[in-house]
Each structure stands twice: as C-alpha cells, then as structure tokens.
C-alpha cells in the first residue's frame, strides 16, 4: 500500500496561483483537517467538484488563506489513487505553508516524478507518453539535485557531511565490536556515548538552524490593534491591497481574526486584524478577544491605530503593558477628518516604549508608504535569528530528513545508554545515514568495512 505524497506542482516562484497536489490513501482525511469550505461541512465533499473556502493550520486553528479544493476519487484521478489539488494564491510563502501543513497532517514530500510513477503503476498512462515522461522525470530529478547543490553551497552540505561522518564513526565502532570480537580492540563506552551525544547536538543545531531559516522565511507577524472603530480594518485593507475585512462604521464589525499575507522586502508579513479589545458579553466576541490577545503576545510588531476623530490613549496603555518585546508603531488615523491633537502626539512620540509614530488616513491611503518603510526597518533590526544563530534555508524534504535523523539518533543514544545490544542500534544509524545521504544526493552507503580496515588493526 502506498503512502500519501504531496508536492507543489506549479513552477517555483511567484505566479497568479500555485497548486499543491496530494495523492494517496490519506487524501480525504487531510482535506477534512485543513479545509474549511465557505458554505457547508467538508464531510459532504463530493469528488470532481471544485470547492471554495479557506485553509487553516489544524494545530492552531489559524486561518491561512483562501483556496480552491478539488478531490479526485481513485481510480478516476491522474495517479489512479485518491488525490486532491489545492489552488492557493501564488506566493511562495503561502504555497510553502500549505505544503508544510499538508505534510504535518501525514503526507510525505513526493520524490521527483513520483506522481507520474504512481500513474504508471496504476495503469493510468497513455503509452505513447511513457518515454517522454521518463525523460521529464530524469530532468526533474536533475533539477532537484541542482537545487539541492545550490542550497548546499549555502552551508548545508558541510554540517550534513560532518554528521554523516560522526554516524559512520559510530557504526564503525559498533561493527568492530560485533564483527571482530577477538581482535583485542578495547572500546571505551564512555566515548561512544559522547559521540552519540555530539551527533545529536549537531543534528539539533542543524534542525534549529533550519527552523530559524523557516521563521525568517515564514513570516514576521504584525498585529493591528486599537480601539473599536479606529479604522484597523481599513488599514489592513490598505496594507494588503485587498478588500477582505468588512469595513463599516458600525462598532465591532470585525468579529473574526482575519489573516492575510503580503510580502515586502523578501520577507513575509502577516497582518492580523484583531477585533476590538473591549469588554463584551457576546460569546463570539469573547472568543475573538481571546485570540486577539494571543496574537498580541506572539507578534513581532504591533501597529496601534488611534482614532484621530476620537483620540483616547487609555487602551494604548493597556496594550503596551500586554506586549513585552514587540515593537509598537502608532498610526494616528483619520487625519482626513480632523488634524491631530499636537499635545497628545508629543506625549506619544516621547514615550520610550514606542518605536515609531506616523499619521495619515487609512481610508485614503495617506501615510501607508511611510508605514511600510518603517515596519520593514523595524523588522530587519529586530531579527534575533540573524544576529545570534546560523540560519539555513532548506526545503521541506531536507528538513524532514534532518528531523527524522534527530529522532533516530535520540532513540539510538537512549538504547546505547540502556545497554541494548549494538546490533539492535545499528539499524537506526543505517536509517540516519540514508536520510542524510538523501540530502547530499549521495545514495551509496559508506564503506564501513573499509573504514574499519583502514583505522584498526584487524585480522589474524
């Protein structure tokens, strides 16, 4: 039985839309976990129909973007298995996060040409195409390999090779113990444990560097906050260039935490338009308020919108107290209606806890360009990952391989400490080597015996 595979099937880079494709037995289950249809329950999803809705991260219930979903019931699909296509907005970041969620929900990154291979295996192929498809498969793999190499020049290759060498050393030591018991080679179990630990730390560092790269690539979270009816939704629409939050003059219109993504400066920004923070008795609002508060805590920067027509800094004080590390930018809104109150402006501008102050009109787009520039500078400065830790950009496949390796080495180290026999530990090391080899594009297993003969005096 096949497992479920996933891949972005549109060309890399920015396009109008991107398509993420999955195939395998868990297809329907994955759709149901992440897809929220516009109008009815996803359990009623019918095959071969296009549905419109949102996709969410099932672990956080945060809605990510709008998508179109088509479910193909096997064998009436390209691969002959249950399959689905998700069309999302064509930003690499959105596409990537959709793919990541799909993989977290149980799919595995597809090998180059694997969809086509499955189509062949299930007899879904026009014969005349076979040769052509084989060539495409080869070139896809070649592209993937080149891409990996490029990335590798960016610093992934060396640490991965180092870890692979550590794993090889461990295997050499364990295999000597197993295959040459009469050679009077003493093995210091303390130093073996040390090597296990070092390999684990090396892997952990690499995984961390990968997720740092991920956070960098994923986005900085920007939260728009402020009193009810201050114009947060208008500002949101201005910044994202989309008309998504419902804008009305009626108080408390924004009842849902809406997210949109936008890219500036090669870095993704998520704008969270929070519902007005205020005492509320309505259940829906309470939930929204809870989420707003959570969003404030995790934000990299907060835009606090002041209603210029009715300035009140009471809530601003509350907000500042709520956040600890995020930069706070004040946007004095509605300058189209009335000029700012200069004494208040001065008071805010001199507050050391405030990182920036701008004024303008969200309705007419005044001050938006300046706001973007300010935010960009702030975020660049406040990137702790860049300053303190190495960052590696890696593909999902690469990170997946590293994470699996990390889990395996932890397991193996524990077995070693528990005194489990070495031959039970070696299979884990073999799997790690396989994972690391797949990152390096090198599938040949290392010559363990060669290492043994080169490094130890073996043989009677």
């Amino acid at each position, binding site marked *: 039985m096949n497992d479920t595979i996933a891949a972005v099937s549109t060309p890399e880079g920015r396009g109008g839309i991107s398509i993420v494709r999955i195939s395998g037995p868990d297809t329907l289950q994955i759709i149901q976990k992440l897809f929220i249809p516009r109008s009815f329950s996803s359990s009623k999803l019918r095959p071969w129909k296009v549905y419109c809705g949102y996709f969410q991260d099932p672990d956080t219930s945060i809605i990510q973007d709008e998508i179109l979903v088509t479910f193909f019931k096997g064998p009436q699909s390209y691969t002959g298995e249950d399959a689905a296509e998700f069309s999302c907005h064509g930003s690499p970041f959105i596409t990537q996060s959709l793919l990541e969620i799909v993989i977290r929900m149980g799919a595995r990154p597809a090998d*180059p040409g694997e969809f086509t291979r499955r189509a062949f295996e299930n007899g879904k192929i026009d014969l005349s195409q076979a040769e052509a498809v084989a060539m495409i498969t080869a070139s896809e793999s070649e592209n993937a390999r080149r891409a990996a190499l490029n990335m590798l020049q960016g610093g992934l290759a060396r640490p991965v090779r180092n870890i692979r060498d550590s794993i090889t050393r461990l295997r050499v030591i364990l295999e000597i113990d197993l295959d040459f018991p009469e050679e009077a080679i003493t093995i210091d179990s303390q130093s073996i444990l040390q090597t296990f630990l070092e390999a684990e730390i090396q892997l952990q560092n690499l995984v961390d560097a990968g997720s740092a790269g991920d956070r960098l690539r994923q986005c900085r979270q920007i939260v728009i906050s402020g009193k009810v009816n201050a114009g947060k939704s208008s500002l949101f629409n201005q910044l994202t260039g989309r008309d998504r939050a419902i804008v009305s003059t009626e108080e408390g219109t924004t009842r849902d935490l809406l997210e949109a993504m936008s890219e500036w400066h090669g870095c993704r920004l998520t704008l969270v338009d929070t519902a007005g923070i205020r005492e509320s008795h309505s259940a829906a609002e309470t939930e929204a308020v809870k989420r707003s508060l959570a969003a404030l805590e995790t934000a990299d920067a907060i835009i606090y919108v002041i209603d210029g027509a009715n300035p009140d800094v009471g809530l601003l004080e509350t907000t500042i107290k709520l956040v600890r590390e995020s930069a706070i930018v004040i946007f004095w809104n509605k300058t189209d209606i009335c000029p700012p109150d200069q004494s208040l402006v001065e008071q805010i501008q001199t507050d050391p806890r405030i990182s920036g102050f701008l004024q303008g009109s969200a309705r007419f787009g005044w001050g938006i360009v300046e706001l973007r520039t300010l935010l960009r500078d702030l975020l660049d400065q406040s990137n702790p990952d860049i300053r303190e830790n190495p960052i590696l950009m890696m593909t999902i496949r690469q990170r997946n391989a590293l994470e699996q390796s990390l889990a395996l080495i932890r397991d193996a180290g524990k077995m070693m400490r528990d005194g489990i*026999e070495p031959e039970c530990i070696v299979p884990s090391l073999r799997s790690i080597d396989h994972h690391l080899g797949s990152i390096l594009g090198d599938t040949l297993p290392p010559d363990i015996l060669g290492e043994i003969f080169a490094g130890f005096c073996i043989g009677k």
Partner: protein
Amino acid sequence: MNAAYLAYFAYTEHRGIEYMSRNVKYDVVVAGAGHAGIEASMACARMGLNTALITLNVEMIGHMPCNPAVGGLGKSQIVREIDALGGWIGRLADATGIQFRMLNRKKGPAVWSLRTQNDKAAYRRAAQKLVFNQPKLDVLQDEITAIQIKNRQCTGIVTSLGETIQARIVVLTPGTFMNGRIFIGLHSQEAGRLGEFPARGLSQSLLNAGLTLGRLKTGTPCRIDGRTIDLSGLEAQPGDADHPYFSHWGEPIDSLPQIECYLTYTNRLTHELIRNSLDRSPLYTGKITGIGPRYCPSIEDKVMRFPDRDQHQIFLEPEGLDSKEIYANGISTSLPYDVQAAMLQSIRGLENARMIRPAYAVEYDFVQPTQLKPSLECREIDNLFLAGQINGTSGYEEAAGQGLLAGINAFRKLHEQNPLILTRDQAYIGVMIDDLVTRGVDEPYRMFTSRAEYRLLLRSDNADTRLVKTGFDSGLIESDRYDLFQRRNRLLNDELKRLETQRLSPTKDNLALMEKLSLQGIHRHMTLKELLRRPEFSYSHLIEFGLDNPGFPSDLIEKLMIEIRYEGYIERQVEDVSRFRKLEDTIIPANFDYLSVDSLSNEVRQKLNAIRPVSLGQASRIPGMTPAAISVLSVLIHRAQIRRGSSGAQEKQDAALDQ
C-alpha cells in the same frame, strides 16, 4: 600377436568396448573438489543428476589449506544456512570438531557465532567418505585444461590428457589453482598450493571464451611442530563445555576429543626483524601484484600500517589430534624462510620452535563475478557455473555456500526451472552472491555480519525457518527431516500463541512468590509473553507459577526466547524489509535494452548493460547508480509490462480523462 592379446581383443569386441575411457556424457561436471566442489557435486548427484567430480588429487578432496577452522562471525550463519538447505559443511565440521566456541555470547543472538577447530585429516576423511559413497557421483582424478564451448554454450571440458568429457553443465570450483603462484620471500614458483601443481590451461581457455580475469592474493601462516613449543606461560583458550552444533539434524555420532588453543604475541623485536627484511618481501618489492584481503593482512602489513602497536596476537591452533602441526594464526607472511624462523625465535613460547611448513603467499586468477548472473551461471556462456574462490571470495564457508547454490541452479537449469536466488533479507548466502554479481570484488571477499542490512533477521537460530522449505523443495532435505522441522516449528508457534494469551494475575500468592524469587512485581494482569520480555524473568520461572508447558522441547526454549525478547527490533526490520521488497520485486525483463534509453546518462547505461540486474533493487545497488536513473527505469519497466498485458482502449480513455 600372442594368444592372450587375441583373447582380450575378442573379449572387448564381445563387450562392445571402444578405446574411449570416458565416453559417458555427464549431466554435470564439477571441476575442483574443495568445499565448493563438494557441495555442488553432492547436491547435483543427490538431486539425481549424473555427476562427475574432477580433482587434481583425490587425496586432497575436502582439504583445509588454511586454518583448520569452520564458522565464526557471519560465516557460521552461512554454515547454518547451507545445513538448512541440505548441504554438508555443517555436518562435516560437527563430526570433526576438536574445539567448539560460541563467539559473541555477550551480545545479542543475531551475532552469536559458532566456530570449530577441526581435525584436518579427519575432515578430509569424512568428506571423502561422503563423496565416494554418493550414488550417481563419479570421482575422477585429472586436470582440466580447457572448457569446451559451442555457440556460446559450454558443452564439456578437456583434460590434461587431451580427453574430452561431455557435460550438459560445467561447474568450475578451482580455488586458488588457476595460474597459481606461491611466494616465500623472493623465491616463487608455480603452484596451486604449497606442494601442489597449479591449473595452467584453464585461465587461457576462460579468456578465450571472453571472460575477464583478475588476480588476487592470499596467504597462510607457517605450521610449527607442536613438540617444539613451550606452552608454559601461554594463555590457554579452551572451547565451550556446553555448546550447540552447526547442524540442525542432530549431534554427530562420534565426537572427537576436545583440545585447547593457545595465545601468544609478537613483540618489538619481532617487528624490528620484519622491518629490516622488507627488501626481501615480495609484497614490498612489488613482485606480488594481486590484491590481498584487508581483513587478513600479513604480519608485515600490520607492522608497517600500525607502527604504534607493540604487539599482535598469535593464536596457536592444533591442526588435528594425530598431527603435531600447529597453525600460527596471526602471522601470515610472505617473508623469506630465514626471517620467518628468526621471527618465531623472538616470540614467547616459540623460542625453540621448528617450522614444518613455512608461511607463503599465493597469487591466483579469478573471474570478476559481475560477469555472472545471480544464479552463478556466466552471463555470456550458457551452462557454465562458477563457485568459490574463482569468484573472488575467500573462506570455506563462502565457497561452500556458492557451491551449493551453483549445484541447485545447475539442476534447475537442466529442468528449465527458475533459478534459486536467495535475497538479502533471506540469507547471508543471498547477501554474498548479490554483492559479488552486483558490485564485483577488489579484494578476496569474506562474509561479515555487517554486510547484511537485515542482520537481526538472518540469525543462526532461525536458519531453518528461513530455508528448510527451500531445501526440501529442492529435494535436498529428506521428508522425515522436513516433517520433524515442521513439527517443531508448530510447537514453537503454538507456544508463542499460548504465551501471548495466558496471563499471570497480581494475586497475593503470585506477588509473594515473585518477591521470593526476587522478581519485579506486577500491578495488572500480564501475559506470559510480557513477563518473559523482562530481562530477569526466565522461561524456567514459569514452572514456579505452574504456567509452564511440559510438552515443549527444552532445546527450543532459546529460540523461543529470542523471538520474544527481540520482537520489537525484529518487527522494525520486517518493516524495512517490506520497503526493500518493493524495488526487489520489480523484475527487469531479461532482454531489456538499456543502451537505447535516451533519458539515462551514457555512463549509467553502460553500467546497467554490463551488470544486467534482474530487479530494480539489484539495479539500485550498482555502484554509481542515481535515484533519477532508478525512477526512469521504474517507469520504463512498467511501460513494458503495460505493453505486454495491454488493454489499450481503457487506458487511452483514462489518460484522456486525466488531461
């Protein structure tokens, strides 16, 4: 013409005798009567084929030219596999063992390895008794100088006397004899082994037939007169008092008295002597070009490569009960005689030792085994099978394993059956043959447990479960033995099931008893299997709780406990195997045209065409293969399958629907 002659003439005419001594056509001719040749010829004859076993010297059938020992790491597993398939090396070693030791007892059962020291002469006698008493097996003494080939088919052999022996299948097992040359210092001479003629013509004949040959080197240490060794002060190495045997089929009828080996060491003086004599070493002066085994280096190699070591071990192993010869395991060398003698004098216990035979190196021709199919038949020459050292291996066990498989596959070829190919998850023999035919060798190939990916599954204790059925189906395991195996297997499975279902409750009595036996207590009902998984809980504890099974044979307890205690690890490997199987079970059509696949690089095409892998799995193990090449192949193979069993209309429809 005298009367006697006339009478003889009349007699022969009467009987229709022609002047041809060997006008029989054999089904199979096996050339070489070492450990590969014995297994191959015995298998063929027992399966009912008219078989000839040709040897240079009948006295030397079943000889152990190197150390008088069978088994050890990885090798003992092969011996058990051969035994489960109906071969002989295990039974011969059991019957002639003068010391039995289980290596790696402190580690897990997957790497427990039995090794015997054997009485060399007794082993030869036992082997000769075996072949001479085998119906349908003719033993002939002669030298093979050529193979006969017609239309890329081997049809027989030619002997040194110029005679031709017709055969439907020829199995070559010539060991180190092809163009063998031995070296003792700067002295060298043509020889298959010390004191034995080489096989001179065969290499040329194989070259003429289009095979590529290479040259390998191996060596053997000196033999010392045991009466001249001072054992006092040397560490004795006794065997295990309580030990299993190799064979699944019971203990030998007569076992031989057991002996001890002894351990001594080289020292700085020995190493100094060696360093000063390298100008007379054929290895270091470049006279030997063949590649020797890295795992079995000569003492001069060890001294030069590991200059920091002050000493190296020497195991002193008796070669037999009647012989006084002691095998000096650890100082194999090709240094001159006088250096060897001086070396011995520098070693503790050997100060007055007298050499009976000097150590020597031997260089010989081998056939690069990538020219073979996994059945061990030559790819380009039909009906010619090769086994043993000719394929670049080293060791009696490795040779015997190949010999047995070559014999079985010779039979299958003649009966137009699919060859027996053991896979890497099935047997060490499968690992070995796959390594040989897929990757080739660049040094003499010896088995190690680390060569097996699925080591936890390829254990000595389950060789029967893995292979007895195959042996029975091949006609090499008698039906009463097969019945016995099945009965025992059923008992084992029934007992496993019982232990899975039967439980121990945390009653007051039980807890008290557990405390008394200093066993960890339980808080809930536990199955007996769960209890037995605890390291301190042994099978015999079940008796205390009245939960034992008196009908269960005690000699199966160890096997049962292995299944229980290693279940988790074994299951993980079984999962790995199922992934491995996917590629392995994708068979590549025999006539697949690699050279015309445009989407493969030229280098990859050439490699695939040279090896001609039988499965996608084998293809993936060819050095230099890329994942891309494998996925291309996978697509093309499926295309070929679809084309064969095509129901084109439906597929076109489906394809149209997809677009």
